[in-house]
Structures are given as C-alpha cells and as structure tokens.
C-alpha cells in the first residue's frame, strides 16, 4: 500500500492471554502482533485453525482486553466496544424476534441519537444496498443463509463504523452461496467505502477479497508474513483461475502448511 495513506488501525505489540476459568491457567493466545490497516483498505487475516484469529478480532472490537501492547483506531486506544467499529459475526447472530429492518436498526436503536424515522430510513437504504429490497418486514427464519448474512452486514454498516470487522462471515454458507457472497461483499464494501478487517479460514477468499493478507502463525499467534495482493481492484470470480491468483494462494498455503508442520498438526511422511 502507498506509504502516504493514513493508518486507520494501528496494532502495536499486542499480546493476549486468555484465562481458562475451569483450570485457572492463563493461555497465551496472541504474541506481539504488529501491523496497520490503512484507510479504505481491506485486510484479511488467515492462519492455521484455532490460532486465535477470531480472538484477535474480538480484541479489536473491544470485547476482550489485550494483555500488553495497544490497539489504536484513528490514534485512540481501543478500550471497549465503540460506535467506531462494528462486527459482522460468524454465525447466525441475527435476533430472531426482530424483523430484517429491526435487526438493521439495532445498533442505532442502542445509540439512540437518531429519530426513529431516520433510523428506519437509513436501514432501508442499507437493505437496498445489500440487495434485500422487499424483505424489510421478514423475520430471519424466513430468509436463506446467504440473505441472513447480508442482513448481518447491513446491521454492522448501519452504525457507519470507521472500521468494519468480519469474523468468518461466510463460514456457515454452502460453497456456491459463499462464492456469490464474496463478490457481493466486495461490491457492498466498495459502495460503502469502509475500511475492513476480515478473518477467514479460506485462503482463496482472503486472496480474492483483500488488498493485503496477514498470515498468523500457530498459537500463540504472531505474524508469520504480510502479503500484498497485487491484483486488479475490479475482481470477478474468473480471476480465481488466473495463474497470478493461484500462485498467491499457493504461497499463502505453504506458509500455513509450515506452521501446521511445525506444531505437529500436519505430519509429514
């Protein structure tokens, strides 16, 4: 990325230990993580399964306190959840008792700074943006998995976050829906012009969507490598078959494989 771009998110030497309440032991999950996300950038985090990618995202969201180091958003230290960040959650985390539009206004309802009509107006615009016009009054159970994740994205965008966090948002979707949602997400983020940090276990998804891919090492996770994805900004699914794409994908896969071998997750004959 251009060195002149302003760093939106600054992660400085972040370590995080999680306390296991049952055994009373603390487990180091993140170790000395250091990187930055620039304005308008989409950065993906990949790493071996269970390495602490989601834990890291929760820390950026302010749901977990870091043990040492600092997470700075626009120069301010993150000390808890705030309106400058919003998370698109992994699972089906829509409130089943709220309709689509009520789910989308949820963050705004909590903030209470806009009048109800304004909140609904903004929610409607976002429902259109994610391609769900006409479904505003439906309940989540009446939607397909892909549609529910669109609502999940709209709910996060509604609070107009400075930084959008996505925690494996398509993990529960079937393979086809997943591919289409990747294209959709790219369009949505381009239109919303949001800086985003994205955790996934699919390398293919990371390369396809991201401007840069941060590869985490095995637990306790540190940064193994940061790989710039020099592919055209306007991407289509056909790109996934281009040699440059495949080369990047394999390069990242080798990094993860090394980690898996090192920790014994993958045994080499």
């Amino acid at each position: 990325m251009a060195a002149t771009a302003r760093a939106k998110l600054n992660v400085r030497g972040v370590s995080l230990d999680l306390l296991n309440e049952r055994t009373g032991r603390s487990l180091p999950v993140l170790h000395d993580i250091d990187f930055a996300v620039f304005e308008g950038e989409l950065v993906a985090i990949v790493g071996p399964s269970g390495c602490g990618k989601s834990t890291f995202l929760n820390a950026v969201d302010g749901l977990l306190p870091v043990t040492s180091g600092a997470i700075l958003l626009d120069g301010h230290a993150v000390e808890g959840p705030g309106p400058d960040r919003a998370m698109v959650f992994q699972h089906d985390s829509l409130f089943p008792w709220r309709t689509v539009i009520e789910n989308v206004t949820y963050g705004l309802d909590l903030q209470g700074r806009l009048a109800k009509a304004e909140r609904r107006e903004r929610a409607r615009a976002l429902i259109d943006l994610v391609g769900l016009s006409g479904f505003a009054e439906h309940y989540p159970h009446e939607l397909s998995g892909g549609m529910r994740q669109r609502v999940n994205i709209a709910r996060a965008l509604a609070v107009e976050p400075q930084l959008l966090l996505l925690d494996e948002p398509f993990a529960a979707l079937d393979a086809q829906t997943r591919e289409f949602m990747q294209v959709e997400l790219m369009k949505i983020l381009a239109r919303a012009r949001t800086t985003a940090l994205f955790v996934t276990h699919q390398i293919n998804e990371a390369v396809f969507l991201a401007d840069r891919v941060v590869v985490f090492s095995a637990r306790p996770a540190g940064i193994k490598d940061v790989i710039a994805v020099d592919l055209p900004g306007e991407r289509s699914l056909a790109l996934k078959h281009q040699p440059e794409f495949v080369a990047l994908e394999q390069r990242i896969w080798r990094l993860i494989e090394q980690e898996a071998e090192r920790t014994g997750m993958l045994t080499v004959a």
Partner: protein
Amino acid sequence: MDASIATKEKRVSAEPGPVVAKSFWKRHEHALLGTISMLVFLSFWEASVAFGWVNPLFTSSPSRIVRTAIEMFADGSILVDMQVSGYEFIVGYGAAIVIGVPLGILMGWYSRVDAVLEPFVSALYATPRIALLPLVMIWFGIGLMSKIAIVFLGAIFPILVNTITGVRTVNADFVKVARSFGSNDWQMFLTVVLPSSVPLLLSGLRLGLGHALVGIVVGEMYGATHGLGFLIATAGARFQTDKVMVGIIIIAAAGVAMTEFLRLIERRFERWRPSVGG
C-alpha cells in the same frame, strides 16, 4: 442452511385455497368431539339424579347448579365473595409478577445477587407454601392481607425460578452482539434477555397462576369472612353441594380464562417463531 429463496409459503397456505368440499364435521372435528363428550357427561349426570340413581345431596346436578347460581347472582351474595377473592388475586399475583420478574432477571444475570438470595429461594421453593399459612395468619390476621400474602408467596417462586432459568439460557451469541454494539446492562435486559426469556417467563406466569388460585381457596378456607374459598368451605360444612359446585365452577372458569389470556400474550410475543410440528 437452506439455500432456498425466502418464500411466503406459510402465509400463502394460511389463506383459503380453492374451495375443496370439506364437510362441516371435518373442519371442526376437534371442537365437536369435545362438545359432544361434555354434553353426554352432563346429560348422564342430570339423568342419574332425575332417575334417582344417586342422591343429589352428594352429587348435585347441572340444573340445580344453574338454578343456585342464578339465585346467588340475583341476591348479590356471591358478588361480594367474587370481589374479595378477585382483589386478593389481583394484588397478590400482580405483586408476584412485579417483584418476581425483575428479581429473576437480576438473579439470573448477576451471580453475586444469585449467591446472596439463592438459599432463601431454594428453601422457600421447596416448602409447600400452604404450610406457611398459620404463620401468615399470625402476622397478617384473617383479613385480606393474609390472603394477599399467601397468594403472593404461592405465585412468586415459580415466576422467579422460571425467569432465572430463562435468563441463564440466553444465547451467548446474542449477548456478544449486543455488547459489540455498545449495549449497557439495561439495554441488554430489554433487547436481548427479555425477548429470549419470553417462553420460560410465560410458563412461570402460568405455573404461578395455578399456585395463586390454590392460595386463595386454601387461605380463605383456613380463616376468612368472605371470598369464594370461604363460600366453598361454609357451604360444604352445611352440605349445600349446589353452592359448593357454583364456587368451584367460578374459580375454574377464572383459571381457564386467565390461562387463555396468557396464551394470547405468548402468541403475540412469539409470532416470529417458525412453527414446529403439525
């Protein structure tokens, strides 16, 4: 997850389709069978008294009960009893809801509050509250207050215990979402904890309702000057079976009506839920 596009299947099928010749009997089979069995039972009861098979002093009969009820309403004697019992119920059960639900939320959410109150709740929940009647009478006398207290004691524990369970079983993912969007505790209760506890909360209210009615009847039998329980007790002592039956029917009808009312509330709050089964 299902990849199907959302449909309005449920709503569409709920509308009347092309007219299929379906007999009146088929459409109302359930209700008709219930009505018929009830009518058969009442006729048999009436007949067994009319033919002298049983002594109406013990069994009364549907026609006697109706006649007695009309008399009691006409001379107004029963209205006072209904008023007294209704008042005891509304105040006692109302207080149980107003105190039980918030307290249950606090005990379910804050483990410290639970640690402090749990021993009392467990002990009292396990005690048949009717056993406390003599104490309640000593403390509050034989007036309205003692009955209100016993109704309250009967109703609050099922409400409390169910609310606590409801709060503890709130989906952790929803709690996380609310936190992430910056919710404070109060907003958490209103937007996540309460809506997800509705089914358990309402089953607590239903259980509490039953206990409250028991409280009224037993409380008034034990010591009172008015009320439906008092009516049943005194009429029973004088072998006025018809009057006893009228009292029982009024209490039973009130119980059924209020249970239905709770079911309506539940349906209102649960309308988002996909239907399960047939």
